[in-house]
């Protein structure tokens, strides 16, 4: 992936740059310290090896440089703490978007091993839920019937795919049905444990749509020499989550390469293609939650605001997302 820097994934959120700044400054600071300390260390090893310095000196070495170094460390740590980390956290944890910001409010209910995204529908009110009503296939969050709670009537639940508008505050009420999970979206610099028995709020704002994120992440890939054989198979396997970012004649933009595609491309003399992740903004589960922890994966689909509205007003009942079919969308 194109590392924006320090191997971090690209940042598409509003607040993410503040987190990245801490990571970057801190790593530079760490690198400088390490190099400075390390050089002193190596110098000592060479200069004071027994061969070069057969007799050690009993007295204490001068303490001043170490005092200075320690004070520098203290000052920089304090600056990062007070100047960056605490304010970011304070903003991120205690200044939720207000009604005036018109945030999109959703509930995210984690379970083994899926993400249920509960939208309140047009009325903006979440219907009630009850554990007894849970049906893994039809009603994963146990939403009550519209006859019991009218607010539930237009609610909409999407499994593993989180539709969201760009440029608008998104307020997530995060909870879990069974064990502890952790809602992590690396590109949005968001991570929060979903603790059963509690609802925890988080909020963020995406500044790029999926397409724009793909633009940021696209990269040229060398095609294998032949469309058959182990190398080609590996190529397809390793790129099964990526799509083409341009029209390559027989292979349209947005396609996932298969053996057939590879054959036509290689026959046409193409040597490299631009690919980007099909779903660039994925939701990972960051807390061990059982044997399916590794595949508890969701995707965000970030639209332009008007596209989001269009989608939202047409949304149906329960949508279950299967990644293997995403290129049909």
């Amino acid at each position, binding site marked *: 992936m194109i590392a924006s820097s320090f191997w971090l994934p690209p940042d598409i959120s509003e607040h993410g740059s503040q987190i990245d700044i801490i990571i970057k400054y801190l790593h530079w600071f760490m690198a400088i310290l390490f190099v400075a300390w390390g050089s002193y260390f190596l110098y000592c090893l060479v200069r004071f090896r027994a061969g070069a310095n057969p007799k050690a000196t009993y007295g204490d070495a001068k303490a001043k440089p170490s005092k200075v170094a320690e004070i520098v460390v203290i000052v920089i740590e304090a600056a990062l703490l007070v100047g960056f980390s605490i304010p970011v956290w304070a903003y991120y944890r205690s200044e939720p978007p207000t009604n005036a910001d018109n945030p999109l409010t959703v509930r995210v209910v984690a379970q083994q091993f899926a993400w249920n995204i509960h939208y309140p529908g047009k009325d903006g009110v979440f219907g009630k839920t009850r554990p007894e009503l849970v049906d893994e296939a039809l009603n994963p969050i146990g939403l009550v019937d519209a006859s019991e709670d009218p607010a539930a009537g237009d609610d909409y639940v999407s499994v593993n795919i989180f539709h969201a508008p760009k440029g608008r505050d998104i307020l997530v009420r995060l909870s879990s049905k069974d064990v502890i999970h952790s809602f*992590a979206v690396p590109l949005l610099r968001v991570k929060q444990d979903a603790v059963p028995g509690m609802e925890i709020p988080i909020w963020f704002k995406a500044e790029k749509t999926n397409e724009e994120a793909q633009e940021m992440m696209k990269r040229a890939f060398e095609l294998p020499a032949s469309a058959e054989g182990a190398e080609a198979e590996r190529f397809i396997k390793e790129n099964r989550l990526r799509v083409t970012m341009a029209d390559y004649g027989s292979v349209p933009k947005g396609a996932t390469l298969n053996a057939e595609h590879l054959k036509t491309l290689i026959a046409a003399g193409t040597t490299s293609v631009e690919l980007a992740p099909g779903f660039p903004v994925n939701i990972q589960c960051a807390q061990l939650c059982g044997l399916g922890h590794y595949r508890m994966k969701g995707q965000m689909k970030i639209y332009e605001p008007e596209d989001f509205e269009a989608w939202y007003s047409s949304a149906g009942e329960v949508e279950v997302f299967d990644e293997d079919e995403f290129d049909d969308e």
Partner: protein
Amino acid sequence: MSSDHHAHNPGFISKYVFSLDHKVIGVQYTVTSLIFLFFGFSLMMIMRWQLAYPGEAIPLVGGWLGKYLVDNNGVLLPEGYNSLGAMHGTIMVFLGVVPLAVGGFGNYVMPLQIGAPDMAFPKLNMASYWVYFAGGVTMLSSFFVPGGAANSGWTAYPPLSNIANTVGTYPFWNGQTIWLLAMVLLITSSLLGSVNFIVTIMHLRVKGLTMFRLPFFVWAQFVTSFLLLLAFPPLEAAGVLQLMDRVFDTSFFMPSGLVVSGVVQEYSGGGSPLLWQHLFWFLAHPEVYVLILPAIGIVGEIIANNTRRPLWGYKTLVYSVIFLGFMSFVVWAHHMFLTGMGTAMSTFFQTTTMIISIPSVVILTALLLSLWQASIRFTVPMLFALSFLPMFAIGGLTGLPLGLSASDIQLHDTYYVIGHFHYVVAPGTIMALLGGVYFWYPKVTGRKMSTLLGHLHFWPSFVFMNTVFFPMFMVGLAGVSRRLWDQTEYVQGIDVQGWVRMSSWGAWGLGLAQLPFIINFFFSAFAGKKVDANPWKATTLEWAAPSPPPHGNFAEVPVAYRGPYEYSVPNAKEDFHPQHIPDSQVV
């Protein structure tokens, strides 16, 4: 005082099996824990195969790992991966490093260094070894019960750990319950040990050995014992609560209304999952300093001895270690920033976390300054001790971005965390402990380990340690979560697959690099070069005893005349002044 006990000849059993002699117990601890370390490492070598080549059959051993770990084709199962991971963490920490650092080195070296004939409570000492042993056997037995070993991570977070591993109707006969029982045993063993250590250090020092004349290693053990004494009981309490949850269906950690796999759970509810995390980390943060302090102590001893000059700022070191020990009790929730902390709590815990990094910086600086104007002998133990310094620096420094709650948002539970703590525990602690083995081996056996094999062990280990763990920082920054059976489910995971393979190859290389050590360890016991009582020309009291020390340790009770590291004193006959030799004989 000590020459007259055991007039009769004790039998084999009471001499080597149920021995009351701290030296025998120390050796028992050392050998047992080294075997556990190797075992814990082997689990990880298996896991690293699945990470490097996801979904491919494990070569060599895949066939006989059993149905709880691998499928019919010998491919590691996701739950098998989780079991191995949980057991790796548990075994390395509780059955490997702590027993080696405290039970092994502490037991063997500390009483000698203070000139004591034995530990204050020899029977308690023996009991603590056997309780540890029982805990270890219990822990290992869980691989064979239905459903396999515990698979909820070494942190065993409920509700997962409450519902995991429940197979059939046996309340006790399953991995997680056995894990808890074993933990209760291991904690009890550590408690017995720590009481013994503190009383021994306070009461059994020989004449003249004031607190500020104690070798640095003894101080490290002293502070470590307090950590064990006060931090372990809360986990014992938590373990009992979780046992009740699992066996008696209470719901201390279970909130109301959980739905697992579509089934509404029946229990009274009202519990708190976060309660476990608090009790666990109240132990586990001090615990990580239990892993590092004895190692720092060993490094201090080796460095003083091989630089031929006093440790720089001995008192500063001591105060830093005490402060570190104290502070380690007030930072625990930095492991819980993302469980939903508000601003107040997160500010408190990130501030204490930044404060606790200061004494570490001071300690490392002092050790570094000890090299200045020294006369450095590059012996094998010294190589290990020296490598500890930059490795601990990398591990410690990468703790800082984790300690700031804002940057922890991105890094929490990624491979960055794995990289951080392995740099402290593996290239850090493990290397220091191995250095300690080379350093005190002549005391234990009367023979030196082979230097050639030592070099063959050190250099590849040093290189491979970094090959294994450095790539983890990149993998983590790229956003790959830890504890993933197959990280190539995610496109970021595929992108870093090269780094991941490099780690794996490094791990297997590291495994191979241990062969010279194992050979050296066993062969030198009877084929090594015979040496006198003080082969390193060291100053502390353990070198005043014969090698190996007899029952009761000292032919004649020593008296301490000076501080521990009087090397290269001007106008002296030799470049070292042992603590027990009166001034009249050295100047």
